[in-house]
């Protein structure tokens, strides 16, 4: 549910957003928001940009503390958008490992489509009359965890997330988790016992609308040990917007297709 309040004294517009699992009408406060503004998100986190001198003071407050930044800019707006979950902890992982709650057994030459959940981070973007943009901050409602995929010698450090398997789109807090539609195809000659899937960070294609953040991906099982994963660059529902990528050049050089060589 979104509520707007206008404090007439300093023109600070306050937007309260609460996640309500049963309501499909609680539009997400993506923005753009005119400044100054304060967003109170799900009682857990608040962000604000208030006038300070000739610029603005950006402040984010959550249970772990607060972050403050001085933004020296003229008129502008901010908007929120979902981004790949690799900023916290920073510069450690370039892969996402989704561990299934229960294994999926798939017979040879068959495919299966289902829904998983994936962790998200939210970027706060300052935009100046659509001329240019800069990311002020990236935050997450989730506690990040890491895991190793593969061996200690050659393995990959991955952002870890455990997900249930859903037959339809699950109800989620869209500022915390996104929906991932996964199609697994077993092109091998034996049954496949799938317990996890690993994706390259570079390949993530995130789409969002007022109610949902979603991705589509495929996993092609080649044999008993290897599988290939990649994201599909299409929205899950019509009218969804594509989230901008928040990557350094270092990450952009990674291949989009991930080959899982250490089992699945």
């Amino acid at each position: 549910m979104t509520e707007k309040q206008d404090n007439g004294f300093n023109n600070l517009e306050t937007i309260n957003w609460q996640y309500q699992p049963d309501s499909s009408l609680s539009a997400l406060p993506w923005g753009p928001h005119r400044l100054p503004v304060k967003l109170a998100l799900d009682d857990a986190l608040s962000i604000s940009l208030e006038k300070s001198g000739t610029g603005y003071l950006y402040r984010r407050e959550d249970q772990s503390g607060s972050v403050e930044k001085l933004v020296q800019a003229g008129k502008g707006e901010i908007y929120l958008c979902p981004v790949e979950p690799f900023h916290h902890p920073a510069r450690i992982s370039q892969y996402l490992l989704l561990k299934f709650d229960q294994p999926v057994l798939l017979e040879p030459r068959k495919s299966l489509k289902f829904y998983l959940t994936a962790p998200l981070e939210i970027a706060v973007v300052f935009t100046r009359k659509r001329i240019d943009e800069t990311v002020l901050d990236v935050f997450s409602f989730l506690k990040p965890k890491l895991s190793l995929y593969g061996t200690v010698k050659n393995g990959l450090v991955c952002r870890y997330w455990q997900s249930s398997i859903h037959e339809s789109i699950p109800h989620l807090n869209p500022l915390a988790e996104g929906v991932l539609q996964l199609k697994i195809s077993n092109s091998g000659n034996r049954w496949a016992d799938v317990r996890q899937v690993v994706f390259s960070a570079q390949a993530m294609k995130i789409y969002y609308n007022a109610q949902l953040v979603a991705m589509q991906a495929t996993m092609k099982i080649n044999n008993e040990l290897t599988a290939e994963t990649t994201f599909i660059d299409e929205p899950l529902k019509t009218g969804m917007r594509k989230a901008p990528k928040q990557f350094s050049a270092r990450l952009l050089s990674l291949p989009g297709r991930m080959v899982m060589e250490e089992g699945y």
Partner: protein
Amino acid sequence: MFEWSEQTIYGTVTWFNLLSAVLIFLGSLLFSKLVSIQLRRSLKDKLSKEHLGMLIKVVSYGIMIIAILWIMPIVGLEPSGLMVAGGIVALAVGFASQSIIGNLISGLFLMGERPVKIGDLVEISGNLGTVEDIQIISTAIRTLDGLYIRIPNETVFTSSITNFSANPVRRFELAISISYEDDADKAIAIIKDLAAEHPLILVNPPPQVFVDALGDSSVDLIARFWSPTSEWYNVKMELLWKIKVAIEAEGIEIPLPQQVLRSASEKKAKKADLPDSIT
């Protein structure tokens, strides 16, 4: 038409010889440049930047040395004559440059083996630090207290190297002691919960926390955690104190070393208290 080219400049060297020498030199220069570009293109994904740089230098200098040896007889200089004339000098220089050649060859072998790369945290012949530069003759490391150490490649090659950055993750261990009166299972659960909360402790390989020894004054626990190689030391520094605070908050005591002393009279008195059938 080209009679001028047959005119001698000095000795038997003609203008044609001199022109040929210049053309060979410039051609070799161009050839070495082309080889360098081709090497850089074809090996940029296979070799690290510093190793590729070294390889290109060696190949370029090699081409130019061959070119100079080729040019020398054309311009009237006999390399064999020079070698004989400079034999004694060469011998002296050879002895003097023995270690340099050794370091150079070791540098080439290190390029092939690649036990360390720039930015790795390593221990080489007792020096712990981050590799700053790998040259053909020596390797430079910056110790953790900021000192610059240049180690000859022969030393690097012949000594044992511990590379702390070779693998993406590493394990570290913390020792925690609790008193005999406290519940070790509860302490283990608290430590595992802390590990599960910490973003930089890996889910897989899983943390291990167990009773390692029944000590003189305490029950000794060992906690083993895996963390990204770049982060393990910060996590280790942070976690031990967090564990201490968390287990003490749950009423678990970290005991001081202690000894229970019993006097002989106390023993006698205890014996006297026992029923006759037992004594």
